[in-house]
């Protein structure tokens, strides 16, 4: 049943991807400025310019350009970077692992610590323990990421010298970026977990579980947490895209390669194909995240499996 549901959801990605690709294509062509300006040598003739424009297919009608582009992408060809003069697919392949590494670790870190904190806040409700976690949640969801990153660098890299200031040489360079993203991520997950636990705790069936003679611990782990995880999983899945793309600022501050930095650089240089390619990858990540979230929901909740049969 899960399998059937998953395939259904997977097929729905196709039309959505097509719609997204149109949006991305249009956005990119709305970008002002001519990328050829960056390419052409000073003192070239107008003929050179026309030739160069034709070489990148920029002289054809938009619709033709779109279908050419989408056709190429189907074959795994993301085009040629105009400024960097390399295949976009290579650039993506080069940067994606860094994003996945950082995003994956930050994701795991935020979900595990966030759920634990949320449960602690719930279990210690109406005591100072709850206030402490609530304070952390407030801080984590308000402090700007780039500022936190700078403070981390000041404290742990410059003053204490525990971790490198920037770069991506080895695992030590990952610690501060993961902590920075995790700070906000933990706050988000802890908040959702806590609220969900409070909601579920009020339901009738929890009273009846107590009436059956189950212990508080058994009720927490067998019933409350599985319920509370439903919204947590939804939020987490939605945030897969956030974590990959939202790492932009953190990648920037720590000077790490990654999809975010690639996109920022390409936006600055008006490198159309690279912007298109990296946006498409991020959109794909968002969709895969949502898909995983939906499937996980269906796996956890029989009512959802039923509703979509």
């Amino acid at each position, binding site marked *: 049943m899960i399998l059937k549901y998953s395939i259904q959801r997977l097929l729905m990605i196709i039309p959505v991807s097509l719609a997204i690709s149109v949006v991305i294509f249009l956005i990119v062509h709305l970008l002002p400025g001519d990328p050829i300006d960056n390419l052409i040598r000073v003192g070239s003739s107008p003929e050179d310019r026309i030739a160069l424009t034709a070489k990148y297919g920029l002289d054809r009608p938009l619709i033709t350009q779109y279908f050419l582009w989408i056709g190429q992408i189907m074959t795994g060809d993301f085009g040629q970077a105009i400024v960097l003069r390399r295949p976009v697919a290579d650039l993506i392949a080069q940067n994606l692992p860094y994003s996945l590494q950082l995003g994956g670790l930050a994701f795991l870190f935020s979900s595990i610590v966030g759920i634990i904190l949320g449960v602690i806040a719930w279990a210690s409700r109406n005591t100072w323990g709850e206030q402490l976690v609530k304070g952390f949640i407030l801080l984590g969801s308000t402090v700007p990421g780039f500022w936190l990153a700078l403070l981390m660098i000041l404290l742990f890299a410059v003053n204490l010298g525990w971790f490198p200031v920037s770069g991506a040489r080895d695992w030590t360079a990952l610690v501060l970026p993961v902590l920075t993203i995790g700070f906000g991520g933990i706050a988000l997950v802890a908040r959702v977990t806590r609220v969900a636990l409070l909601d579920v705790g009020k339901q009738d069936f929890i009273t009846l579980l107590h009436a*059956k003679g189950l212990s508080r611990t058994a009720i927490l782990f067998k019933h409350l947490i599985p319920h509370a995880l439903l919204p947590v999983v939804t939020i987490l899945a939605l945030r897969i895209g956030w974590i990959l793309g939202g790492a932009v600022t953190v990648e920037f501050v720590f000077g790490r390669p990654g999809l975010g930095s690639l996109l920022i650089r390409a936006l600055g240089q008006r490198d159309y194909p690279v912007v298109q390619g990296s946006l498409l990858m991020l959109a794909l990540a968002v969709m895969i995240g949502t898909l995983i979230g939906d499937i996980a929901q269906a796996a956890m909740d029989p009512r959802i499996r039923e509703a979509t049969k």
Partner: protein
Amino acid sequence: MSMLRVQGLGVSIATISPLSGVSFELERGEIIGIVGESGSGKSLTAMSVMGLLPLIGGQVDHGTIEFDGIELTSISETEYRRLRGGRIGLITQNPMTSLDPLKKIGPQVDDVSRLHLDHDKSQAKARTIELLGDLRIPEPASIYHLYPHQMSGGMKQRIVIAMALAADPDLLIADEPTTALDVTVQAQIIRLLGDLVKQRNLSLVLITHDMSVVAQTCDKVMVMYAGTAIERGRVQDIFNSPRHPYTKALIGCIPHGLSKTVRLKGIEGTVPGVAQYPSGCRFHPRCGLAEDICKQTVPVFETTGNRAAACHFALGTAQ
């Protein structure tokens, strides 16, 4: 020895006292009905006996609750947990929300016998299926594997009853077990509960706002109003000659057949909230017989034989 004896029960939640002065007694094999409008304290009484007040931040601050010789207000949480589900079963108001929607219904019933009868997985399953059959649920072996959302309300309420019965309890507390169900199903469930009490020699506390249900099924009745008990006694006595004006009015609310000549009587006004309990007799603002004394002095329970009423002008006494 009584199965359940409650004396002078009072409950506090934070700084308020939503329940006070509740006393009743129940023998093995008997059914007592606790009636009253919403907000009269019926469910709080049930929660007190189950020891579940901490869930809503409350506690018993007056009186005693004695179950089969055990004083419930002074036992530890661990001991209480053994009684809950083991010797005292609870049936809740809304079957729609009383089962964990993420788990199959069979294992939810299994929990009880595994917890209290030390059954292993297969013993518990066999017992559950047998029990579902006893409760007239068709094809219990396949029902076992369904999720709550795949069943009707009446079916779900039978599952909740099965859960309450799974460890062979001595006492059942049913908190408005039919309120959320269709009228036709209501009758079935009430009949089922009555039969179970006879077959298994159980005691049942039946909480309801429906006087006609009390008349059909109960041996005793306690009437509650605004967080306190106002009259109790055997069902025949109460129905034949109610002594508290409120009880009388409640009985007046029961429809009788298709008579066109008798207009149904309602009771003017509503039950006051905890914060606005009136002084003196809490019923006096709605009472047709109220006089000055009712506004000033809280009436005490006046016991005559098997019955008691808390009213300054208890009907059918001295005058």
